[in-house]
C-alpha cells in the first residue's frame, strides 16, 4: 500500500480534531469554568491523537492482497485480523473509487462485490495505475470464470 494512504487518513483525523480543539478553546474562554478542565481535556486529546496516528500507520501497513490462480486474498486489521478469500468466478463488480482527498494525494481503492452483501473485500491506498491494472486483471479473470449464481 502506498504510504500516501497514511497521509490521507491522518489528514482526515486532523480535520476531525480541529473541531475538538475549537470546542476546547471555547470552553477555555468561559470564565466560570476552572482552567484545568480545558487543559486536562487538551492533554487527553493530544495523547489520543498521537495514539491514533500510530494506529493508522500500523493499520495501513496491515493491508495486503495476493492474487492467486483462482482467487484473490485480502488481509487487513491489527486488532481484529481479517482474511477474505474471493474466487474470481464469484466477483460480480470490481469498483475503483477515489474521493477528493484521495485524488489530490493520488491514491484509489479497489473494492470487490459478490452476490453476498457481506463480502468485505476492499484494497485501499493503491496508486491509480496500479489500481486500474488490478481492476482490469480482476475483471478479466472474473469474466473468464464467471458462473453466476
Amino acid at each position, binding site marked *: 500500500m502506498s504510504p500516501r494512504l497514511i497521509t490521507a487518513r491522518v489528514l482526515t483525523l486532523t480535520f476531525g480534531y480541529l473541531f475538538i480543539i475549537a470546542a476546547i478553546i471555547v470552553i477555555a474562554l468561559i470564565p466560570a469554568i476552572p482552567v484545568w478542565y480545558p487543559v486536562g481535556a487538551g492533554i487527553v486529546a493530544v495523547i489520543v491523537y498521537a495514539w491514533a496516528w500510530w494506529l493508522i500507520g500500523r493499520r495501513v501497513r496491515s493491508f495486503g492482497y495476493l492474487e492467486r490462480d483462482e482467487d484473490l486474498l485480502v488481509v487487513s486489521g491489527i486488532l481484529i*485480523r*481479517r482474511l477474505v*478469500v474471493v*474466487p474470481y468466478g464469484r466477483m460480480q463488480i470490481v469498483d475503483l473509487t477515489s474521493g477528493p482527498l484521495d485524488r489530490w494525494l493520488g491514491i484509489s481503492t479497489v473494492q470487490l462485490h*459478490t*452476490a453476498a*452483501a*457481506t*463480502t468485505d473485500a476492499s484494497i485501499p491506498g493503491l496508486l491509480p495505475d496500479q489500481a486500474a491494472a488490478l481492476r482490469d486483471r480482476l475483471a478479466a479473470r472474473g469474466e473468464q470464470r464467471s458462473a453466476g449464481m
Partner: protein
Amino acid sequence: MAVRVIPPLYLGFLVIGIDFGDVVALPGFVVAGLVAIAASAFVAGINALAWLKLRYYFDDDGDLRVDSGLLQRQARRLQLSRLQSVDAVSPLVARLFGFVELRVEVAGTGDSRVVLRYLRKPDAAALQQEILTRHEALIDGDTTDAVKVPALVPGVPSVEHTDVLATVPTGRLLGSLILRTTTMTLFVLTVVFVTITVLAQGWAALGLALITGGIPILAIIREFFTYSNFTVARGRQGLRLRFGLLQTQSRSVPPGRVQAVELIAPLLWRRFNWVRVQLTVAGTQGEGQQQGSTVLLPVAPREHAMRVVSEVMPGFDLDDVQWTPAPDRARLRAWVQWRFLAFAVTARFIVTRSGRITRRIAFAPHERVQSVRLSEGPWQRRLGLATVSFDVAPGPVEVVAWHVDIGIARPLVNDQEQRMLATHRLH
C-alpha cells in the same frame, strides 16, 4: 372491491364536522360522520373509476403490459422471459366479493413487480395460467446455455393442492409463538413488574409492564395472523407455500433459488422437538421483511421439517453430518454457547451450529458460498481461535463457524475455497 381511505383524513373531517356543527345546527359528530361517509364514497368512486381503467394485455413482443391510473396514467411492461413469480393474494374484503390481487414479479432491480389490484377470481386464474404458459414457451424456445432463466414460480390460487407436504395446526402455531424465548422473557418481566407495582403500591413499574406485556402480545397476534393455515405443497416447479388468516398469501420456492437454510429451535420448543425453518431465497422481496427472507415452516416437528428441507436442498441429511465442535477453550470467549458451537463440511454442504438458548443450525451448498472470511479478534488470537464466515446472498441466514481452532480454521478457509471452485467447474 375494497375501499381504501387514508385514516388521517378522517381526523380532518372530524375537526371540520365539529366546526360546522355550530353553523348547521346539527350535533358535531353527525356532521363529521356525514362528511366522512361522503369522503369515503368519493374515494370509493375514484378507486372504482381507476379499477375500470385497469388494462392488461400481451403485446406483439410477448411482453405483459399493464396500464393503470386515472389521472396519472402508468404503463408498465414486463418481460415474461424474466418472470420470477406470479402470486395471487386475497385480502379479506376482496375475498368476500370473490376478487383477488395478482402480483407479477420479474427479475431485475428496483420496482420490478406489478400488482394487478382486484381481478375476478376466474380472470386472475386465467391470466396467471396464460403468463405461466407464455413464460414456459419462452424458456423452451431458446435453451441455449448462455441464457440463464430464473426458475419459474407459480402460485395458482384456485387450484387444489394435491401434494401437500406439511401443514401447521393452529394450536401448535399459537403454542410455538407463546413459547418463544423473547415472548417468555418479556412475559416474565411483565410479571416481575406487576409484582413490584403491587408490593411497592406505586405505579412506576406498571408503565413498563404495559410495554413488556403489550409488545409480545402484538407480535404473537401479528405472526399468528400471518402464518395461520400454513400449507406447504409440492408444485410443478418447486414448493408452494400458502398462509394467512385474513390475507391469504401464496409464495413459491423453486429449489434452484434457495441460497441457504436455517433451522431455529428456541429453548422451550426443544421439549416438543419443534423447529422453525427459514430460507434465503435469491431475488425475492421479502414481504415487508428482510430481503430474500422466506419462512418455509413457522413451526414443525423436526422430522417433518427435515422432510420439507430435503425438497429444497436435496441430499441434505442432518444425521449424516460429522460435527467438528469448538475447542473447550472457546468457553473463555463464548461462555454461554461454546458447548453447541460447531461446524461440519459434507460433500455438498457447509453446516454451522450456534446458540445455546435458541439453537440455530445453518447450512448452504458450497456452490452458493460467494466468499470466505476469517477473522481473529485480540482475545480469540490469544486463545488460538478464529471465526470463519461463509458469505451467501443477502437474507436472514448467516452461515458462520464461531471460534474454530486456528489450526483447523486456516485449512477450512483454503479447502472451502477449493470446494467452491470444484463445484464451479461442474457447471
